[in-house]
């Protein structure tokens, strides 16, 4: 986790494993969200799992290495804000139709369209929002903590 030079980086196995783990972790996270409403797991847990894989990449490759290998990481703040907006929107859109906030549709007892095990209800959108927020927030925190002091400090 020490920021900086290549001579401090962990050995090749850790680096390879870190790169390889990212894909499966995203699959696991997706599974947690899809199954979340029926079985164990939710957006928060899924988000932390993806963030853990990203964190491992930081450990393995260093900050610069990780951010060079995964340039998509620099969108983390946008992902966090987007996730929050999605969650808030899911919560407050029902107000428009005169319902209390966080009223999910279809209503309790109504029929639900199923795609495999995934039930298409708005609560899943809320979970996706939380997932994005958690991934974004934790990635930003990892980035901030990994920055060397002279760049970070005032």
């Amino acid at each position, binding site marked *: *986790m*020490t*920021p900086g030079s290549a001579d401090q980086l962990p050995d090749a196995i850790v680096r390879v494993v870190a790169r390889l783990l990212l894909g499966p972790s995203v699959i696991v996270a997706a599974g947690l969200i899809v199954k*979340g*409403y*029926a*079985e*164990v*797991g*939710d957006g*928060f*847990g899924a988000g*932390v*799992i993806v*963030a*853990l894989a990203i*964190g491992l990449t930081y*450990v393995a490759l260093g900050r610069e290495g990780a951010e060079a290998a995964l340039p998509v990481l*620099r969108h*983390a*703040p946008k992902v*966090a804000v987007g*996730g*929050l907006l999605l*969650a*808030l929107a899911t*919560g407050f859109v029902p*107000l428009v139709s*005169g319902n*209390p*906030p*966080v009223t*999910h549709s*279809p209503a*309790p*007892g109504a029929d*639900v369209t199923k795609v495999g095990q995934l*039930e298409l*209800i708005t*609560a899943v959108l*809320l*979970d996706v*929002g*939380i997932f994005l*927020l*958690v991934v974004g*927030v*934790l990635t*930003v*925190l*990892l*980035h*901030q*903590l*990994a*920055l060397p*002091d002279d760049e*970070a*400090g*005032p």
Partner: protein
Amino acid sequence: MVEASRDRAESPGNSAHRALSPDWQGWAACAVAVSGFVLCLVGRLAGGWSVSLPWAPSRGLRLDFALDGLGALYALLATGVGALVFAYGTAYLSLHLAHERRPAAERWRFWPWMALFAVAMVGLATAQDLILLFVFFDLTAVCSYFLIGFDRSRREARTAALMALLVTVVSAVALLVAAVLLYAEYGTFSIPRLVATVGAGTTTTVAGALVAVAALAKSAQVPLHFWLPRAMAAPTPVSAYLHSAAMVAAGVLVLGRVHPLLARSEAVLSGLVVVGAASILVGGVLALGQDVLKQVLAYSTISQYGYVVVLYGIGGAAGNGAAAFYVLAHGAAKSALFMTAGAVTMATGEDRLSRLGGLARRTPVLAAAAGVAAASLAALPLTVGFFKDELFFTAALDAGPLTTALAVVAAALTFGYIGRFWMLLFLGPARAEVGGRSRLLVAPVVVLAGVAVVAGVVAAPFAGLAAAAGTVSNAAPVTLSPAYHLDARPENLMALAAWLLGGLLLAARAPVGWASRGLAAAGARLGPRRAYEATLHGLARVSAALHDREVRDLRTSIAAVLVPAGLLTALAFAATPTAGAYRVGTVSGADWLVLPLLGLAVVATLAIAWSRARVAVVLALSVVGFALAAVYALMGAPDVALVAVVVETMLSLVFLAILARLPRDGPGRPPAAAAGPSGRWRDLLAGGLAGLAVFASVWGFLSQPAGTSVSAEQVRLTPGAHGGDVVTVIVADFRGLDTLVEVTVLLAAVIGVAALLRRGRLW
């Protein structure tokens, strides 16, 4: 204004100021106010409108607005005067910023608050719900804090802003308490429904008194009046708006809105009369001796809103109608006078009556317009002010001889101080240089003076507006027909007596001034401001003492959490019956797996307490976390276990990352050892207390028989919400609103971290 004027005095003429770019923010705010005025006017002419949206239906809360008579009056006043003051402010603020050598970007610290204030006033005027009323009430206070403290480099501006905020916001809590009291009794926050159902009784009296406290503090009534003269540290457009027609008017607006409730209790109405009378006298007498222009006007405002409070105290058709008319007439006149004071100070660099004089020859238009505004305040004929006093006298006559005498004295005081203000400013020998003038600083005063004269001839539109507003306050029809009567009716005699007495006050200016200043000095020594300052200093000292103790070192910071938590739990423990609440269960099945895991957690915890090496502490912490996660998994909470595992992993990672940033030396000897054996015992005591409290709480909770709790109900409802997993359904649905708030906090925390580490840059 004192600092600014000193600046000015050094460089009279002040042509050297660099010109600032046009104030488009100010004109945008002005456009907002104008369009608000037009909309309110159209709405009023169309017979009013109302809108009601659900907000929190389970609590009976709705976003309930209506442009009724009262709402229209205050909304038109706030937007109409607002538009003029904003136009004035575009010129004033540019000059003000140029004086203080501040950049034009500072306008962003001013105009958004002004515009928000206008919006909040319209919201307050049209709100039909006690909670909404409270929200807008506090919103105006928050805006006023930033506006009064606009010159934030000056200490007095900051103190004044804080004082205005504290006095009005702390007393506004009384409004909320009253709302909750009424809700508890009648089950609604809606004002029209309360008006329809509430009867006389103790609850009504207490709630009415509480509302009155909030409203009177806002309207700067004795004894909570002291914030207003201090608030004159604000730039003049702020005073011309907030301290004439808006912020102080918000208090009496609330009185007018809930007046049918107040009228259920004689005690509350009498209280209003007493407070209003005291404010009339204190404000009027103190205004007679003030030297600083805006201070005269500030004390005058205290006195003038005293009139309105007395009128609401008198109540009935006459009182409520006159109160509404008074607010309208006073708001227009007073903001014109405030703008006059600002224009004079900007042109001469002086802000004291003793250094000004003879301005009538140099600024005839301003002198005439200000004269009309002053005449309107002093209730001279051919101005709208005459009718405000006529209606006031009528209501006072109905209320009895004491109120009648008070009314005459009040009008005489007004005549005296406003006459003195105008004469010292515009007549007599010229004392100050007149520098550059801006037309825009004079034009709004002229417009308001024109309004005062036109309404002084044709009073019907003002009277119609005020009658409609009085009808709402009175909950019964009110008709107002102000007119000139050339006969010896009592109102006319009272007006003559008031002018005569006021003329005497003017003639005996010097002794009256001494007496007034003597009273002001006595008030400063013994008055309520002293009590406010003593309270504030006392609280600050207690808070500082606690804070110093808490942040002295890591141990006291931890103790500050552990000891109060332990003591509170112990208190709860002592207050609740414990018989049968603690049971020792049996160990069976999976419990045999849980026990060693808990043992592992205990051992790891002890290791944390004893270890000196950082990495060992972090690893031991994660052992505790994983052991507990395993316990969750075994106790049938796989969701919690999953979250615990992933969070624990992340925490360990972050801890290690932080350790990598610390210097290489270990933590050294723990401070407990350094503090000696007594320190160690103290630590044990604090930790033991908190630990025991938690132990007792958890044991008591686990002893509860299953199936009678909220959780059972949640398990029952889960399938209906299309879910199989209770925890997910709770987070996403049952407690969804909590989740939304919590995730918002998460993002706020990240922004906090970014602010601490990287000056707010997220990436």
